[in-house]
Every structure is written in C-alpha cells, then in structure tokens.
C-alpha cells in the first residue's frame, strides 16, 4: 500500500474515522469457515475428469451401443438366431441377411448379437463374482492381519502360480456339462485372486495413512471410517479392476469356445462363432469378420475405458 500511494502526491492528512461509523456485523457465526462454492463430491469430480478424456468417453458410448444392440439385436431383422434355412447356406451379406448366413443357413446378424449376450453376460458375471469374492477375501486378510493374513495370502500365492487357462481347461473337462454355470465356475475359480491381492494391498496402505489417523484422532467411529474413508478409496481400484476383468473373461471364454470347451450349441458366443468360421475362412471370410470385429471392439473399448477410469478415479491426481 505504501508504495502505491508514494507517487500520488502528499498523503492527505488522516482524519480519525468516528467510532459510530463502525458497526459490529457479528463475529460469532464463523462465516469465514463456510464453504462458499458448492461441494464437489468424489464421484462428481471423477466424472468431470472422465469427461475430459475423449477417448474413454467414446469407448463408453461404444460399449453402451453394444449393450443396447445385444439386447435388441437378435430381434431386429425378425429371423431367430437358431432358425435354419436350408435354401440360404453360406450366403454373403444381403438385404435379407445383413451379415450373411453360416453353413447351416442361420442368420449371422441375429447370431452375432445373441453370441454377444452370452459373451458380455459371462464377462460381467465373471467380473462381479471375482470382485465380490476378492473383496471379501482381501478385506478379511487386511482387516485381521497377522497369521490370518499370512495364511490367506499364501493360498492366493499358490493359486496364482498355477497357469490360469490350465485350470479353466481342466475344470471344463471335469464338469463336462458345457452349461453357462460350469463355464462360470471354471473361469472364476481362481480369477478372484488378483482382486483379492489388490483390495488387500489398498486396504493395508489406507490403514496407515494420515487421513485415517486424523479421522481416528477426531473420534470418528471405525464403521464410519471404513464407509467414508476406506471404501471410496478402494472403490477406484475395484472399479478399474472390474473394467479390466470383463474383457479378460470375454477373452477366456472365447478361447475356451474356440477349443470346443465353451458354450454348447445351439447357443453361441463370439468365440464359438469364430471357431465355426475358422474352417471355411478362406471361402467365407465375412463369417469370421463380424464376431472377430466385435470381440476386438469390446476388448478395445474396455481397455480404453479402464485407462480413462484409472486416470479419473485416482484421488492422488486431484488438484
């Protein structure tokens, strides 16, 4: 202030301001501590950051379209996915059969979306099962600690060191029922190990962090600490794990179906469609093209969405 007034001529003589010009407007309402701006919740903040990531947004839109198509797709052209038309074998894409027909004359457009139902359902169900089991297992290990933690994590370590696809193949050979249920069992039997490790690691890290200590020091109840502080911070890890789990399950199922161990006819999945198209690929490449494109598109979208979510949900990036 002093420097500013320096160049503006002589300072006018200070006249004392009369006391009555001052009024007490209150000092006891702590208005300085009030948060003037609307509070941005964790999820709103994450959504704001996620929207800035155009690639992830496109991936989300593609996935949304995919889900809608999987629901309405099999009914769009009025031909049932298992309907056999002997007069239209191995036809290329046409006005009647938009994606062509397969070697039994079944409409590939309906089949591709029907297959998508199975593939995506398996992906989502697998991710949910492994998340629930992994969270409980990892949570127990982190919460109890000590020898419980040691034993539980040793078990995970042993399970983890068995090649995943070997277990999947073995279980599907043994159950031999080729139903979605036994397929799910085979896929998720050790699939939860990764989530369990992640959740445990995150929980252990959080337990020793300053904000949890601060909450404890302020007398917040343990239940509220878990709900308000631990869970939202673990949520981001879990959510990202889910987005990466789903394409992995879709991939594993496609792999199994390709080897003839997956879903049984007349039902089908993208892997099974690819497998069926493989034999005649040199003559009817379009039969492989559509299911392969959809697998690749789904995998791509989930991977990009996962990358975007990880960036958006990581609280450490908050500024």
């Amino acid at each position: 202030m002093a420097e500013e007034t320096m160049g503006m001529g002589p300072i006018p003589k200070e006249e004392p301001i009369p006391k009555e010009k001052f009024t007490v407007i209150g000092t006891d309402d702590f208005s300085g501590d009030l948060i003037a701006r609307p509070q941005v919740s964790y999820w709103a903040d994450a959504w704001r950051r996620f929207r800035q990531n155009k690639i992830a947004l496109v991936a989300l839109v593609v996935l949304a379209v995919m889900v809608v198509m999987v629901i309405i797709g099999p009914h769009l052209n009025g031909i049932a996915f298992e309907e056999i038309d002997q007069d239209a074998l191995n036809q290329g894409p046409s006005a009647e059969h938009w994606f062509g027909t397969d070697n039994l004359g079944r409409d590939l457009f309906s089949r591709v979306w029907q297959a998508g139902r199975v593939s995506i359902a398996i992906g989502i169900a697998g991710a949910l099962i492994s998340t629930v089991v992994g969270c409980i297992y990892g949570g127990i290990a982190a919460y109890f600690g000590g020898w419980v933690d040691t034993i539980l994590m040793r078990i995970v370590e042993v399970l983890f060191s068995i090649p995943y696809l070997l277990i999947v193949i073995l279980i599907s050979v043994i159950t031999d029922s080729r139903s979605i249920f036994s397929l799910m069992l085979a896929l998720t039997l050790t699939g939860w190990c990764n989530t369990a490790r992640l959740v445990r690691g995150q929980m252990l890290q959080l337990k020793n962090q300053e904000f949890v200590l601060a909450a404890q020091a302020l007398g917040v109840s343990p239940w509220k600490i878990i709900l308000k502080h631990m869970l939202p911070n673990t949520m981001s890890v879990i959510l990202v794990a889910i987005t990466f789990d789903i394409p992995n399950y879709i991939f594993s199922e496609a792999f199994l179906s390709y080897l003839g161990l997956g879903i049984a006819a007349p039902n089908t999945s993208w892997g099974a469609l690819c497998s069926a198209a493989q034999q005649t690929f040199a003559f009817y490449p379009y039969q492989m093209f559509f299911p392969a494109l959809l697998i690749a598109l789904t995998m791509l979208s989930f991977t990009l969405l996962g990358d975007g979510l990880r960036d958006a949900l990581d609280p450490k990036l908050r500024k």
Partner: protein
Amino acid sequence: MVKYVIKRVLYMLLTLLIIITVTFFMMHSIPGDPLASMARNLPEQTRENYYAKYGLDKPAGEQYLIFMENLITEGDLGESIRYPGRSVTDTLLTNSRVSGTTGGLALLFGIAIGVTLGIVAALNKNKWPDYIVMFIAIMGITIPAFVMAALLQYFFTVQFHLLPTTGWGRPENLVLPVIVLSFNTIATYARYVKSNMLEVMNQDYILTAEAKGVTPFNVIKNHVLRNAFLPCITILGGQIASVFTGSFVVERIFSIPGLGFYYISSINDRDYTMILGTTVFFGALFVVAQLLIDIVYGVLDPRMRIKAKD
C-alpha cells in the same frame, strides 16, 4: 540371499505338490471311468486284466501313491490310455521340443521388438512414433490369437501364396506361428517398457545425472534403461506362460505337433493320463520359470537383495 532362494524353492515344491495332487484327484473324480467305453464289450477276465494294467483296480489313494512314486523316482507319468504303448513322458519330451522352438523363437522375437518399440515410444512421447507404437500395442492386446492367425493365413497364403498355411519341419513353416505367438509379447513389452521408462525419467537421480552434465545418450543408456529394464524381468514369467497357453490355439490352427496340439487332442479324446501328465508338465514349467525369474531379479537388483535380507 541363500535363505531367500531356499525359501522360494520350498514354496515352489509345495505349489507343485498341490498342483499334482489336485489335478490327480480331479481327474479321478470324473464320473465314470476312463476305460468304460473301451472295456464295455470285453469278457470279465479280460476287462479285469485291462483295468489292472493301468492300476485302475486299486483305490484312488493307492493309485496316487504309485503315481507319485513313479514320477519322483523315474519321472514316469504313465501310459496313454487312448494310444496304448505310448509313454506320456516320452510324448511330452518330444512335443515340448517342437513347442520350445516356436515358443522360444516367439519369445525372443517378441521381447526384441517389444522392447525396441517401447524405447522408441518413450523417447518420442506424444509424437507420432509413440501413437503408432501404442496403436500396435492395443491391437496386440485386443485381437485374439485365432483371429490374427486366420488373417495372416488368409493374406500370406490364400491371397499371395508366400508361405505355407500349415505344417511342420521346414523353416518357412515357423514364420506365421512365431508372428502370431509373439504379438501379445510385443504388445505387453512395448507398453510396459514405455511406462517404466517414463517413470524412471521422472526420478531425481536422472535430474542429478543431467545436472552433472552427462550426455543425453549416456543418461538413457546408463541410467534410464538399466532401471527401466529390471521390472520387465518380472513379467517374463507371465509371458512364458502366455506363449505356452497361446500355443494351444496357434498349434491347432497351424497343425504344429507340439504340446498344445496334443493337449487339446488329448482333451477331445478324453485321454486322462495324457491330460494329467501334460497339466503337471505345464504347471512345473510355469512354476520353475517363475522361480528362476524371481532369483534372477534378486541377483540383478541390489535393492531386492536388501529387501530379502530384512
């Protein structure tokens, strides 16, 4: 360090024992017995002899002990049920040489290309070489091996007649399978090397080196690459496994008489001793590879040695 290695070897043996035991009893819990379909029409005495030949007349616990004894003392995994006279161990050893050739080449090729691409991407962050590499990497992760194989077969053999579609024995048979098998390795390594290098480049010791006046080339060569490569060794175990599991599909498509090919056909044949033997073999391969990688990592990274001591 020695204590750490011994501990790891013991865990490895425990893991192997669990894999073998679980696989054995799982194979035996399958309803119906593996010989039932073949022995159905045999006379009583012949059938008994037939079962006795495979030891299937004994209770499962005793069979397990015999199996373990043969495995430990002679490395004998029994005889194929579907193809009498064919020893499982011999089949595994012959086929693993075939798989090892394709798998090993794919791994070397994949690591070489993947690491190079990763370095290029990291040094040109957010420029067009980075975008191209990341595009390739995303493709490698999102396109299934069987689609990739079909595409390559279509273009290289059906369209342009450059390479044989399937077969084994000539060098040109190796080209397509190795490309398909290495694709995932390339993608994984490109992504991993890139992110590791970017992480190391942000470290304070890089700033120190630059401040001391070390030339940019030497900073990359001596400081960034050394530190960025170390963690890459840890994913080698997973890569070895993925090359082998990838071989299930790739060997079938290209008709390569390797482990994966026989594993799938023994599953289709319900050849239980073969499935059991191959699973044990795959499990052992995977577990031993992981152990070796952990030990190598401990030897190469001084920080790990200190951690292991604590």
